[in-house]
């Protein structure tokens, strides 16, 4: 079987379960692939590892790929498939806080992780909704501290990904609170997010393997949507420390980022030029990159998508 190393951009979790499902259900094996999964520590980490051929293919935020290529056009990676067609970023708050919609956030205390890509989009989302870009009182703290800060009143809201809603719900429940999620995708942030990224070397030297891989991954993603609890169990069987039920809940929270009106319109995994341009528009503004520093199309390789049915 052909060896493929798949690079995650973070630790295993429900949102990363499709690749595990593919391994466990034998989708990769059926395609003549033996897939090795490596954990990662952020999109930049994943992109570097793929660019230096420590992995063949993996997941990373398309925003990070664009930023990388805008600053160093020699980074040899291409985006080949879109996983999240919507931004995962969101304000999380408690019902009792009285924040019901995005504009209520003005003047509130908001906590966020120090190095999440969400921070760059925050000013844009705020101005998009008619608020000044410094409308919130922002503090940055370790992701692990955000939940407790929200629950004990240390902050009015936090910024996190909707993929983690179940985790925060558990914490809210434990303190008798009701969690309110305000996704930025409902507030005008229209872009691709988590995507499949492949090294140029992998694409040029083993195009056939890449094609089979994407096909099997595509199948895994669909299977995961339909069988969240089985996906949780698949993850659990490969990563014993995982709680299968929590993972299943995460799968359910993640799927709307994958299967939604965008995927219905363009197809699963699709990378349309319009939405790519839109994404670059957001990213270049968010990260202070000149609009002409990158042709966003140059980071895309649709050859694998074209072979999918």
């Amino acid at each position, binding site marked *: 079987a052909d060896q493929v190393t798949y690079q995650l951009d973070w630790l295993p979790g429900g949102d990363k379960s499709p690749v595990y499902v593919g391994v466990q259900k034998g989708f990769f094996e059926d395609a003549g692939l033996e897939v090795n999964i490596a*954990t990662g520590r952020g999109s930049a980490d994943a992109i*570097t590892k793929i660019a230096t051929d*420590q992995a063949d293919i993996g997941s990373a935020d398309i925003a990070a790929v664009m930023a990388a290529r805008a600053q160093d056009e020699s980074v040899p990676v291409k985006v080949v498939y879109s996983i999240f067609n919507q931004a995962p970023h969101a304000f999380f708050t408690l019902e009792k806080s009285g924040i019901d919609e995005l504009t209520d956030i003005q003047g509130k205390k908001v906590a966020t992780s120090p190095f999440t890509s969400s921070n760059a989009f925050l000013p844009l989302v705020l101005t998009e909704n008619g608020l000044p870009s410094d409308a919130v009182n922002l503090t940055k703290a370790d992701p692990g501290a955000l*939940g*407790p800060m929200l629950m004990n009143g240390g902050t009015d809201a936090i910024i996190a990904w909707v993929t983690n809603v179940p985790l925060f719900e*558990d914490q809210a429940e434990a303190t008798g609170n009701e969690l309110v999620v305000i996704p930025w995708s409902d507030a005008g942030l229209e872009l691709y997010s988590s995507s499949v990224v492949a090294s140029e070397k992998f694409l040029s030297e083993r195009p056939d393997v890449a094609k089979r891989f994407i096909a099997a991954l595509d199948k895994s993603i669909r299977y995961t949507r339909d069988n969240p609890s089985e996906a949780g169990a698949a993850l659990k069987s490969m990563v014993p420390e995982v709680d299968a039920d929590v993972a299943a809940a995460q799968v359910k929270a993640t799927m709307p980022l994958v299967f939604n009106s965008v995927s219905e319109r363009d197809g699963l995994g699709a990378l349309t030029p319009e939405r790519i341009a839109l994404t670059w528009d957001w990213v270049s503004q968010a990260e202070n990159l000149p609009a002409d520093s990158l042709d966003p199309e140059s980071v895309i390789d649709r050859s694998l998508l074209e072979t999918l049915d």
Partner: protein
Amino acid sequence: MSPHSRARAFLLGVSPWVFFVALILLWEIVCQAFSLPAYVLPAPSAIVDAFFQVEFSRWLTHLWATLRVALLGFGISILVSIPIAVAMMRSELLSRTLYPLLVVVQSTPVVAVAPLIIVLMGSDDSSRVLITCLLTFFPLVVSTATGINETPPELIELSRSLDAPTRRETWQIRIPYAIPHIFSGLRIAITLAIIGAVVAEFVAAEEGLGYFIQFSTSFFRIPQAFAGLFFLAVVSLLLFKSVQWSQQLFFPWSLPKKGH
């Protein structure tokens, strides 16, 4: 041994445990009394529960992953740093040239260069061992160099007057004299070795206690993370004690004299 001194020895032996148990009890009581949520500070009872929810064989896997990196890094650090300290003591030129470089290496937060190391060396044991070495070797160099420089001048003169090879001056006089200092460095380094292994796992690993803690935290499974922390602390403590025991066993003369 008089009954009095036997009682004293018993007290000394028992007191750390009493203190430890008292601390755990206090912790449990605080958690219960203030009903601190488990995701902030889990009660010891919750940590114990979490500990037993993880299969023992998984613990062993993680333990072994961390331990082998820590010990390998620690060992290599010793092998590297003592010759460096000796060389720096012998040549002022080398000392002046190398010291700034060592300080630069030491004061570069490994967390920040770890990704570079991983990219350059691949994300396997070798890069984690290197990260561990980077963290541990500096205290060893500093302590050994300090100790070597504190050798009484009379003894150096004795060696000079014998016109003995410098090698023997180093091995038979300076290094033995530096033993108390070297062990003070080893005590610091062994705990840093564990930290180094853990930090390396935070940056790239698929197993190990550091990975386990990070992973548990990413799922907000704080009691489980604390179980990992606790396990890690026990391991560190045992390693630290082993350093002390080796000194008692192999270099009893290097221990401070007890008053009469």
